């Protein structure tokens, strides 16, 4: 039995905007165990980032969050904001798309990596600095003993992201949340970072939540994947099952729309239209207006339930595909 690190149940996030309430996330359930990688895929506005930010208490102030979140067995929604902050700082590491949003430009990289060790592990300044050198070495930054005193602007994009990973790992977190960590990086650097996270995970047994829009990255990193659309999970399951036999028309369309050398020449099977506006979501299936399967009036009016199509593989559609891709 694997140890559950983070579990989310019935999570809903509503954002108050000037143009009304936007339902960013609607009734999302998932969990991730130690040593496992859970990938959340979706397009912009699908709710993939918002669901994770809300679960860890980082949603914007205007957000109304309901549902239950358990971190290492402790109900986060039941504890005080101070306790929540403490738990998050001690047990969760974050890596975001743009490393400069996580790094303070006027502090040395080493100082920023050391901060967490002092704050949460009770190290002295001296110990924390030594630990920072170790961590920079761990994430593959060359000559870490010198680089520890460098400022973020002296690092390249890939090195900054490594520094952010070092910061995220400073307290040996049980959970690493990686929100599009490689999107701003070049593909050869992306390969380095993917490899680095996988290696650290093997060594430290960290649970990883990897948020991305890149299905190729998902195929490489995930044990389990959830596909989000219009604030809901439309498909969820073991990565092999979802890629080999995607059941939701959206998942199938997304996989088919990628250029594939085997089918070069013709037009790509594109999905018409654009992702839905969270301010104006349809009553039924949010994908219905763009769906190639099209279904019937039921799709427009009634929300399809998440139905299990194979062990652990669930799909939210009235018309699941049964055959392999």
């Amino acid at each position, binding site marked *: 039995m694997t140890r559950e690190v983070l579990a989310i149940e019935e999570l809903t996030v509503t954002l108050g905007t000037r143009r009304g309430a936007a339902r960013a996330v609607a009734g999302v359930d998932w969990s991730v165990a130690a040593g496992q990688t859970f990938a959340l895929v979706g*397009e912009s506005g699908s709710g993939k980032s918002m669901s994770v930010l809300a679960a860890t208490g980082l949603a914007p102030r205007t957000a109304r969050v309901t549902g239950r979140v358990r971190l290492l067995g402790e109900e986060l929604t039941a504890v005080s904001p101070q306790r929540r902050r403490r738990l998050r700082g001690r047990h969760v590491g974050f890596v975001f798309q743009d490393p400069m949003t996580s790094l303070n430009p006027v502090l040395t990289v080493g100082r920023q990596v050391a901060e967490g060790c002092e704050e949460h592990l009770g190290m002295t300044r001296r110990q924390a600095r030594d630990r920072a050198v170790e961590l920079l070495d761990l994430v593959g930054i060359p000559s870490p003993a010198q680089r520890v005193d460098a400022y973020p602007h002296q690092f390249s*994009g*890939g090195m900054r992201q490594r520094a952010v990973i070092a910061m995220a790992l400073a307290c040996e977190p049980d959970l690493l949340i990686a929100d599009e960590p490689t999107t701003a990086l070049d*593909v*050869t*650097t992306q390969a380095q970072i993917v490899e680095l996270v996988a290696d650290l995970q093997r060594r430290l047994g960290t649970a990883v939540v990897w948020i991305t829009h890149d299905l190729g990255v998902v195929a490489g990193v995930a044990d389990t994947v959830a596909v989000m659309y219009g604030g809901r999970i439309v498909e969820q399951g073991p990565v*092999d099952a979802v890629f080999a036999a995607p059941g939701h028309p959206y998942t199938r369309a997304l996989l088919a729309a990628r*250029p594939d050398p085997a089918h070069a020449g013709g037009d790509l099977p*594109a999905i018409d239209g654009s992702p839905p506006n969270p301010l104006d979501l349809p009553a039924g299936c949010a994908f219905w207006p763009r769906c190639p399967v099209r279904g019937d009036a039921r799709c427009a009016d009634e929300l399809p339930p998440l139905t299990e199509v194979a062990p652990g593989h669930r799909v939210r559609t009235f018309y699941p595909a049964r055959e392999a891709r």
Partner: protein
Amino acid sequence: MTGGDATTGGVRPGATTPHQPTGAAVPGPPAGAAESVAELDDLRVWFPARGGPPVRAVDGVSLTVRRGETLGLVGESGSGKSTTGLALLRLVDPTGGTIRVAGEDVTGWSRRRLRALRRRVAMVFQDPQASLDPRLTVGASIAEPLIVHGLVDSAPARRRRVAELLDLVGLRAELAGRHPHELSGGQRQRVGIARALAGEPDLIVLDEPIASLDLSVQAQIMNLLRRLQRELTLTYLFIAHDLAAVEHMSDRVAVMYLGRIVETGTPAQLYREPAHPYTAALLSAIPVADPAVERHRRRIILGGDVPSPADPPSGCRFRTRCPQARPDCAEQDPVPVEVGPGHLAACRYVGEAVPAMRADPPVPRPAEPGPHPAGT
């Protein structure tokens, strides 16, 4: 996609530019073959840097874009691919080399004459949100090139032409009255394309046209670009870092690294048999949307970062990260070698390096110390 023979046929054996140490030149068309729309010959674009040597963004690039084709230009950030595209419109000033568009040497054209150049070469940018004036309606944005180039004089005729252009890119004519913020990302990029089409250019430089779009919208825009190319016989320089998109869109592909072209060929040649170690590494780094393939895949992981273009390595520029680099790679700029019809690679150990990389277990080399700029 055009067959390999149609795009590479008739290449002169060993056809490279006289400026040999400048990376794999894209061979020019022989007499009687497709007419060239744009040619760069040993182009260099250096940017002055305060208190240091200039940043050599483009450092000896030669290529030819032939009428009706899509030439894909791939490379990572800092490779100089976007600067190369900007140079074709003379939006950056060349430090050396020549730029020819439709047979005319435009390298030294005055500001006044450049207006004519920018009708012949149009550009579509990555972020349509940033490239469209937020205060102008969509119609006004599309009409602007018509006015600037004096193409349509009367307002009613302009409105008709704008409607026609909107229809071409798959937008309803009513959208002419909207502002960019009222459109989706995909619609905005369609407007960017309509604007580029307005002057009926000889060449359209597409600089990362799909990079900022949602996955489901990327395929729409690629299909649109290809349909327009078929219907209007357009010529594209397709600049992107997404290798799968470049493969899908291009008749020929040139791979850039640190200001140079390292390999050129048809997508089939490059993607099936990359001859330059950098191309091979780049291809092996692309994730494939298939967990079974990903699990058993042997990736060539490059060590370190791209060196600073202000201080590029001597000899082969890729040697500091190349898993197959040998001591003499530092001595001389590698000369482009023809490894197949129209397939050129600038590597001293072409034919040996890539097979050796694939046989060896991937060993990441230690990164070079020293601060690197984050690239462009």
